[in-house]
């Protein structure tokens, strides 16, 4: 990822900063110029809750360059509670536990490092909801 792209997308990567459409009121992620639901201009910045569920998933054994250190890992299509679908790595999970419909929450983690001298890329991943005592 070029330094400029990394910089431009930091808010959406770190904290799921998306938009809400002023016309049809649907949540939009990632942010864009035109609402994908009604084709009107997209709206003001809106940070998503980060809660959602696993819509589908796959475990990766052959991984793209730069991610070798993390293999194997599970990538999921996560349906956020506000509606948008996002693709992200799952973390803090045993791959045997992952199932469709599993509740997950967004965490900000290291996505990869550009070698030991390059920049560190941070972004969203999802983990199973943290168990909280009642």
């Amino acid at each position, binding site marked *: 990822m070029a330094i400029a792209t990394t910089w431009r997308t*930091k*808010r959406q990567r*770190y*904290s799921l900063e998306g938009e809400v459409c002023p016309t049809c009121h649907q949540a939009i992620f990632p942010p864009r110029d035109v609402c994908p639901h009604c084709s009107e201009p997209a709206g003001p910045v809106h*940070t998503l809750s980060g809660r959602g569920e696993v819509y589908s998933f796959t475990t990766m054994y052959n991984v793209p360059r730069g991610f070798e*250190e*993390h293999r194997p890992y599970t990538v999921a299509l996560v349906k956020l509670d506000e509606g948008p679908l996002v693709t992200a*790595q799952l*973390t*803090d999970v045993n791959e045997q536990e992952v199932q469709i419909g599993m509740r997950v929450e967004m*965490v*900000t*983690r*290291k*996505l990869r490092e550009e070698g030991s001298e390059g920049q*560190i890329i*941070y972004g969203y*991943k999802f983990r199973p909801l*943290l*168990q*909280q*005592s009642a």
Partner: protein
Amino acid sequence: MLNQPVKPVGIVGYGAYIPRYRLPGAEISRIWSHGAERSPVKEKAVPGLDEDTATMSVEAARNALARAQIDPREIRAVWIGSESHPYAVKPTGTIVAEAIGATPATQAADWQFACKAGTEAMQAGIGFVGSGMARYVLAIGMDTAQGRPGDALEYTAGAGGAAFILGPADEAVVVIQRSLSYVSDTTDFWRRPGSHYPRHAERFSGDPGYFGHVIPAAEQMMELMGAQPGDYDHVVVHQPNVKFPVRAMRALGFRPEQWQAGLLVPEIGNTYAGSAIVGLTAILDVAQPGQRILLVSYGSGAGSDAFDLRVTERLLDVQRRAPQTWDYIRRRVVIDYATYARLRGKLATT
């Protein structure tokens, strides 16, 4: 000694973070001594491959924000104390500030003072809030400590920490009644630039280092406040192992029931800049209004910060607004030494 701030200051939100992996001391002993050595802790917390001081600070900060329920754009400083910042040059503070939505009208910087870096950030935050320069300051102490394989510190070098949002005392869940520092040039533990692992002077780290700062800092605080050990409901001090804090607190006149809630080192190891303050978060999870807490950190090099704290009625409303410290301690996944070596980058793959 530090004067009182112009305006009274307190903690308006707090949050902990501890990663989920645990390496038992028995496993380290198995590798290096066929089980003959006794570990000073039951186990220690180990970060995942995708975690570092920045990501762990972000989660602790989000927990503190969930409790404080303030607009992050009102935070005027994001200060992170650690000895394991991900970059040697480039602040962790800006990453955390961006992730929680505190940018751009904020100070953002990293503090360095071994295990006292987090409480140093809190002291500076008291100045910022107490002078009226800022309504809120976010001060964090967080570490992913590394011990040289086979070194005594490998048993205890853990990962975790805590975040505190400081603000006006009348909004606080805990009022900071007084703070002070006690420092000297004492070289008991250090790491030079470019070295991966710290070095330590085994015999020196106890008496002139740890006890030589923790005990006088606590004594000075009690003298200044006209307090006796029995006046505090909870006490928490830096925890490099179990033996040191227990010996120090006992020498000061405290009893096990006063330190029980904050003594986390047997479960998570020494979390360095996070050690004393993550203990404080565990106390705050169970503390009651009106209770009084003594917090004393210790950083090698060397120095202690002491804080006299009083819990307010507001604490009860915020305790459950974010995961509690024991929620993180309980989500433990035990790993073996091979997995640990991989997670902590101890394998040469290139």
